[in-house]
């Protein structure tokens, strides 16, 4: 065992861990980093993509050089065949694990010539298997040909439709539905979407909502505007939604500004960030500090700690870690942050009390929770505090409509998401003693004078209170 201080010339501050800026390395700065998120518009080796399948289900996949991407019943393909192609375009699987840009005609199916009389109803419609004139064998043969790329999918669907006896009897609307259904069944067309905060939010909200604290995309969008998220600003964030909120901030900042994350444990679990295909320089923007290191720990005091190694590289690493931690703490203590964002299972009120001193004046605090009850006490705290105004508790509500067609059928979807969570927000203000504030005394019955706390909301004294 070796005393650390004897082995190395470290310019640690004297004795205990005072947070002097001297001797602290400069954290990497985000200046002059180009639009990092937008660099990733082309699929490259190891890119992540949210693959949208013909069924409209999505799958989060990484395109590795040797991997075969399996889309279940829609086929599979070699990932490397997509390298160099743009995201967000339709591609189709064909032949033996082959993939190619899809013909745009697949979308034209919606606009099929549906030349039958208007006003058809389903009165004479009898639903039975024999309604299809093609045999199962013939259909299977066509499907096989389509898979080999010999017959375009839209022709396959058209043939099936033309051979359906009942098709003409269907209403305009159910015809469209029929085509859509066949399209989903036979098409091998998929779209690899470039992961974005919105894409990840929509994917996980369907696939595994618990992973993102049941945060719905419209709610996420409200958080970003309520928090005035913009490029070049500096934000404090507590993100226990897997990093989804952090992803959204990073995307709206595009490498300009600073995000300091406060988190549990030594390493920060913001797993979802990796799906954004960001360059390593993202860590110039994104910094993290564990809750346990808001105050200096024993293992940061190099003079008095026991070091079990003499290996210079490991000692260097240790020294670097300690200095970086100090720098990040100094960053927090310097304050002046432009917003505080919280998704956490901890007591919201305590987090706000701990971090709001580091917020600049007239900057927002925005809290999300899937349960409004966890924020009610904090709401009252913010509303009655002299350090905050405009406390609001809101819930975003969204209704999607069935695609209106020229023929008929415009109405809200039969099923919808019941809740997308709740948002608590307020604006930090700088209180001062005013005559108005000192006049805020009321006489209570027994003659004593009691100070009544200003709610800060009326902007006027209620001397008659």
């Amino acid at each position, binding site marked *: 065992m070796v005393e650390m201080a004897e082995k190395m010339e470290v310019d640690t501050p004297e004795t205990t861990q005072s947070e002097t800026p001297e001797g602290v390395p400069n954290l990497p700065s985000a200046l002059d980093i180009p639009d990092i*998120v*937008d660099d990733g518009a082309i699929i490259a080796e190891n890119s992540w993509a949210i693959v949208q399948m013909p069924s409209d289900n999505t799958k989060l996949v990484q395109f590795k050089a040797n991997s075969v991407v399996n889309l279940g019943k829609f086929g599979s393909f070699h990932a490397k065949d997509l390298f*160099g*192609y*743009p995201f*967000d*375009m*339709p591609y189709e699987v064909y032949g033996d694990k082959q993939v190619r*840009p899809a013909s*745009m005609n697949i*979308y034209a199916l*919606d*606009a099929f010539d549906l030349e039958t009389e208007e006003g058809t109803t389903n009165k004479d419609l009898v639903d039975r298997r024999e309604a299809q004139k093609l045999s199962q064998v013939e259909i299977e043969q066509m499907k096989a040909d389509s898979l080999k790329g010999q017959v375009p999918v839209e022709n396959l669907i058209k043939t099936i439709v033309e051979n359906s006896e009942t098709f003409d009897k269907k209403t305009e609307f159910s015809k469209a539905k029929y085509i859509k259904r066949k399209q989903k069944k036979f098409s091998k067309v998929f779209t690899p979407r470039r992961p974005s905060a919105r894409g990840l939010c929509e994917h996980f909200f369907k696939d595994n909502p618990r992973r993102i604290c049941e945060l719905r995309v*419209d709610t*996420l*969008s*409200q958080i970003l*505007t*309520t928090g*005035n998220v*913009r490029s070049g600003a500096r934000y404090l964030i507590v993100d226990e939604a897997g990093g989804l909120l952090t992803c959204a901030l990073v995307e709206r900042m*595009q490498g*300009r500004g600073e995000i300091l994350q406060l988190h549990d444990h030594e390493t920060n679990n913001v797993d979802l960030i990796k799906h954004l295909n960001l360059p390593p320089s993202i860590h110039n923007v994104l910094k993290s500090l564990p809750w346990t290191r808001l105050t200096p720990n024993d293992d940061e005091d190099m003079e008095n700690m026991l070091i079990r190694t003499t290996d210079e590289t490991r000692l260097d690493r240790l020294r670097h870690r300690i200095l970086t931690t100090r720098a990040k703490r100094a960053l927090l203590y310097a304050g002046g942050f432009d917003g505080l964002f919280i998704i956490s299972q901890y007591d919201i009120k305590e987090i706000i009390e701990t971090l709001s001193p580091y917020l*600049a*004046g*007239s*900057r927002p605090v925005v809290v999300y929770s899937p349960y409004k009850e966890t924020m*009610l*006490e904090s*709401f*009252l705290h913010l*509303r*009655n505090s002299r350090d905050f*105004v*405009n406390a*609001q*508790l*809101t*819930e*975003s509500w*969204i*209704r*999607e*409509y069935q*695609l*209106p067609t*020229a023929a008929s059928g*415009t109405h809200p979807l039969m099923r919808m998401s019941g809740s997308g969570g709740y948002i608590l927000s307020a604006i930090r*203000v*700088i209180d*001062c003693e*005013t*005559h*108005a*504030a000192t006049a805020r005394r009321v006489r209570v019955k027994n003659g004593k004078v009691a100070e009544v706390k200003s*709610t800060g909301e*009326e*902007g006027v*004294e209620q001397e008659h*209170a």
Partner: protein
Amino acid sequence: MTTTTTAGTFRAYSRHIALGDTVIAYSSPKTITYITVTADGEFCNSYGGFPHSSMIGKEWGSKMPSKTGKGFIYLLYPTPELWTLSLPHRTQILYQPDISFVTALLDLRPGVKMIEAGTGSGSFSHSIARTIAPTGHLYTFEFSRDRYEKANLEFSEHGLGDIITIQHRDVCVDGFDMSDMVDAIFLDLPAPWDALGAAKRAFKRKKVGRICCFSPCMEQVLKTCTALKELGFVEIQMYEVLLRPYDVRKVQKRSFPKLGDAKKGNAGAEKKRKAAEAVSDSDVPGGEKTSGEDHTTTLHVPLNEELITSKPQAEVRGHTSYLTFATLLPQELPVRR
């Protein structure tokens, strides 16, 4: 302390108020107005005067007493959302719930080039500029000469001149005169279908484009959808978005009176309960009172714990507009790079 004029408050956050800045004068959630700070101006409300000169150099968010000391305001930084609540209405405007959702679904972020028509009161324009700055650009079109002139002046006063280009033009008649230029388009027009052909041409040819049409009536939505389909737009989706605000208040959770206690009475507890309710009433901005039945309960109920409750506000906005989104794919097959 700075006394110089800034490039414009809206362009970037600052810590202190400067001459020429737009300041949001906040009195209560429902009393929000704006001030443009001048050297010798004074803001007045019913509680007295607030000289501009005393605002200069103050930190954003500062509480400022009136000269009489009878009241105070908070000097807030003009975020696009606060601006939306205080701006001079020249038209029906877009509010935060729709603005936020459209921003997300059009994939707006720094660097995006986009079109907005019409400009209206500039509510959404300010929000777009915040989100796409510093590398993006907004081309906004307004067909009323008066609104065009006012918005043009406002954008330059707010330091947004390098992010926003405004043109006086009826896009339904004259189009945008732009091709292969933008990533996203937002149409808040009475007849958006008349502008969709021009919109299609304005999109970048080799990129996926996103469009949103904002229409209050279902009839407009149907015509828009038909036009979008005919022009080859795909993934047409339509939504309504609203924000539901909650009222939060404390209520007394009282235990059921035990048999036999009824005659004893509990005047002390009742007094305490009434006092508690008076305080929680005054907490509510707008001074909403508890319903009458709370006061008609028996005197013989012992006071128990407080419960924090919440409920949606009694009357809320029920409809703004339908939001129709669509995607325009590049018209050529993608090539490998």
